[in-house]
């Protein structure tokens, strides 16, 4: 109904907030249900779970997300009974609630404009929920309506209400009966009428008020909700509302001093310390700080060495503060991994259902924080990996039992920080990867020659190659074309590396190493063809002074000897289509390694300093085929292009001449 009364320009921003809130609420719903499933009996968790659904329902109704509102209403009704202990927290109930929370998440996505939900599934879950509401005694369930429940969310408390209307209450067409009806919407109401003041008929004034009532209300509502019932008659009656300690009701469970708030004290205190900021504002500020740092570097470049001695410490302090501002802003943009982990937990449950496999899913390290630019793009590779693990990695329960493994498979997802990067580990205890099969597939796909000799690790890395998929049939879950090459591509696009460790029959572990942010990059500045370029430190192995005698040729390919192997040497200028200044001889060789561990040497003319650079994305298609991933502005104001080492190596590997080199360098040395 909100929709009709508010113009879209007003409504839009409110919806954005609504969906942000939904994400948070879904997270707490899920973690709460998980905690209950693990056996927690903390009533505050039940409350939290209830509140989450309640809030979603309330807002959804405002925005006319009918399906979402209807579903959350049913779910709320069940949770309300769980909270009132009308329903026991059985394992079956919690399973159903988790299922319902998945549907709720889908409905939120649908409302957000995402994929339409499967209404058959929604209806089915609604039916399950209705079953729970129907199970309880009495008819309270049938009287539920979204409005009747109002703003629930506190603990069950008992209140004594002393109410004596004055004549003016009746004159303004208010009616005690209606007030009692409102009160009974808040909970369970017992009333006692006191008619002792009614005079004899002779003295009775029809316009006067003689009756008074004492009520006992058991309610989850905050005290304010009770006062609100009497909002219109505040000046027209004597009214007293006090906590009741008697009446055979459950004692208020809260500690003294906590006056019936509907939020737990800790949550309350915490929410006061959190502000919601539009991301665009943070990004804008971040860009400004980037500019500041560029200017500062420029300043340093131009005047740093000419500063008067007494100014230098001031300048040093200025630099230090700029750096701290930058780091502080990065911290603001950082977010914990937890929501992504929770999404994966949801995914696992959905896959369990779809595959009939039983999975224990454990996630640790969800508190680790990464920049939101990284976080946003993490879900895709993780989803692929977990799907693959369940679909292909884990055996069927019968198969597992036959192998002496527990019927339920285990998948663990863990995260930790190492060397300024975030490392994610995804392990399963499934069948592991069959190297023989990988190799035979790779040969049949023409990815390797039939007589090539590859090390075990090289074989494993084949699964990351485009066009490789070992699944003999395309299952519904992994979907067509979702091979490990897609995962690899996602991870590489994040500036990360992926590796795999697998033991046949024991399980598989994937290791993802990702930068904490995409906004900053450590790199060295090199010069070639009159331009400046950045080689990311993560890809750099070594720099070598090249001498003419170091360079050999295999056919048209130039190679250099590096750690007992020969690796191709290519001129950077040539790669990028810049004019080559002088020969490749007497230049500097930068040995780089792509994410698969393939090394090449890139010849450049100059190597400058190593520095932290601020990554600026390049608009348009320029970067795609040019071995460049992004750009930056250097201290002297020049633009430098950041090299896409993975892309460069990939292209070299694919060029016909190099195949010969790589085909043999893996395990055999080339004899020249």
């Amino acid at each position, binding site marked *: *109904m*909100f929709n*009709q*009364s508010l113009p879209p320009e007003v409504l839009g921003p409110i919806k954005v907030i609504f969906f942000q809130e939904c994400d948070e609420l879904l997270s707490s719903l899920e973690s709460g249900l998980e905690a209950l499933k693990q056996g927690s009996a903390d009533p505050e968790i039940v409350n939290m779970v209830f509140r989450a659904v309640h809030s979603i329902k309330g807002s959804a109704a*405002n925005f006319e997300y009918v399906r979402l509102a209807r579903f959350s209403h049913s779910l709320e009704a069940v949770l309300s009974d769980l909270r009132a202990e009308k329903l026991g927290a059985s394992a079956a109930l919690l399973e159903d609630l988790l299922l319902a929370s998945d549907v709720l998440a889908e409905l939120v996505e649908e409302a957000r404009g995402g994929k339409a939900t499967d209404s058959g599934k929604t209806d089915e879950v609604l039916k399950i929920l209705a079953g729970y509401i129907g199970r309880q005694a009495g008819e309270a369930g049938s009287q539920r309506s979204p*409005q009747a429940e109002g703003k629930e969310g506190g603990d069950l408390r008992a209140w004594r209400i002393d109410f004596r209307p004055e004549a003016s209450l009746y*004159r*303004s*067409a*208010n*009616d005690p009966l*209606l007030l009692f009806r*409102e009160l009974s919407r808040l909970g369970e109401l017992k009333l006692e009428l006191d008619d002792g003041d009614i005079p004899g008929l002779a003295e009775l004034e029809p316009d006067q008020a003689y009756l008074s009532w004492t009520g006992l209300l058991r309610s989850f509502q905050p005290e304010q909700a009770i006062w609100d*019932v009497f*909002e*219109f008659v505040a*000046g027209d009656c004597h009214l007293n509302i006090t906590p009741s300690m008697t009446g055979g009701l459950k004692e208020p469970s809260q500690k003294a001093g906590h006056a019936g708030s509907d939020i737990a004290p800790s949550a309350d205190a915490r929410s006061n310390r959190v502000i919601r900021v539009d991301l665009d504002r943070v990004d804008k500020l971040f860009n400004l700080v980037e500019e500041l740092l560029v200017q500062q570097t420029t300043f340093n470049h131009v005047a740093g060495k000419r500063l008067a001695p007494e100014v230098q410490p001031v300048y040093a302090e200025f630099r230090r503060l700029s750096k701290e501002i930058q780091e502080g802003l990065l911290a603001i943009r950082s977010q914990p991994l937890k929501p992504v982990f929770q999404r994966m937990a949801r995914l696992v449950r959905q896959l369990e259902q779809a595959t009939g496999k039983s999975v224990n899913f454990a996630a640790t390290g969800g508190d680790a924080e990464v920049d939101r630019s990284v976080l946003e793009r993490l879900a895709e590779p993780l989803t692929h990996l977990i799907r693959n693990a369940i679909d292909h990695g884990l055996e069927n329960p019968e198969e597992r039992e036959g192998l002496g493994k527990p019927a339920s498979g285990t998948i663990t997802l863990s995260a930790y920080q190492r060397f300024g990067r975030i490392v994610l580990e995804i392990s399963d205890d499934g069948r592991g990867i069959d190297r023989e099969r990988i190799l035979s597939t790779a040969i049949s796909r023409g990815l390797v020659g039939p007589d090539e000799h590859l090390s075990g690790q090289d074989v494993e890395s084949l699964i990351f190659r485009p066009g490789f998929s070992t699944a003999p049939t395309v299952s519904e879950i992994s979907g067509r074309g979702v091979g490990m090459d897609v995962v690899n591509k996602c991870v590489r696009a994040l500036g990360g590396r992926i590796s795999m460790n697998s033991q046949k029959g024991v399980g598989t572990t994937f290791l993802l190493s990702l930068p904490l942010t995409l906004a900053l990059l450590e790199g060295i500045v090199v010069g070639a063809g009159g331009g400046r370029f950045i080689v990311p430190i993560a890809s750099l192995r070594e720099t070598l002074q090249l001498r003419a005698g170091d360079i050999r040729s295999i056919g048209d390919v130039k190679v250099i000897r590096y750690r007992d192997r020969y690796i191709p040497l290519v001129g950077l200028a040539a790669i990028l289509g810049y004019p080559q200044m002088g020969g490749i001889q007497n230049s500097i060789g930068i040995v780089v390694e792509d994410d698969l561990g393939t090394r090449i040497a890139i010849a450049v003319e100059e190597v400058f300093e190593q520095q932290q650079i601020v990554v600026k994305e390049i608009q348009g298609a320029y970067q795609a085929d040019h071995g460049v991933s992004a750009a930056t502005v250097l201290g002297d104001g020049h633009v430098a292009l950041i090299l896409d080492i993975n892309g460069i190596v990939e292209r070299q590997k694919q060029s016909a001449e190099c195949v010969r080199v790589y085909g043999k360098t893996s395990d055999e040395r080339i004899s020249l």
Partner: protein
Amino acid sequence: MSAKTILAVDDSATMREMIFQSLSEIGYRVVLAVDGVDALDKLQSEAAPSVIITDINMPRMNGIALIDRLRREGPNRTTPILVLSTETDADWKAQAKQAGATGWITKPFNPERIADAIRKVSM
């Protein structure tokens, strides 16, 4: 049971439309009047409303005067009257109460609050 009738009195066409739309949608029959005088006319010709919702500031006869008139005599002495107004000073509330208003709804327009208030004051 036939639909409850709500008489909504407001001089703003937009407000009348919004009240009409949102209350019709949830099942009420809505009769509209443009001011106090019109409201008295409608009360003559239409079925007795379950609830009257009125604006305060209106030409010809304002909301306070309308309430005062209805409370003094006639079949609507006991009809719940909700005041819907943008007036921010506390004064109007007191005046409306003094005149016999049952309750109030403060603008900005929130259809849900109107529905809630109607529920609170009517059977």
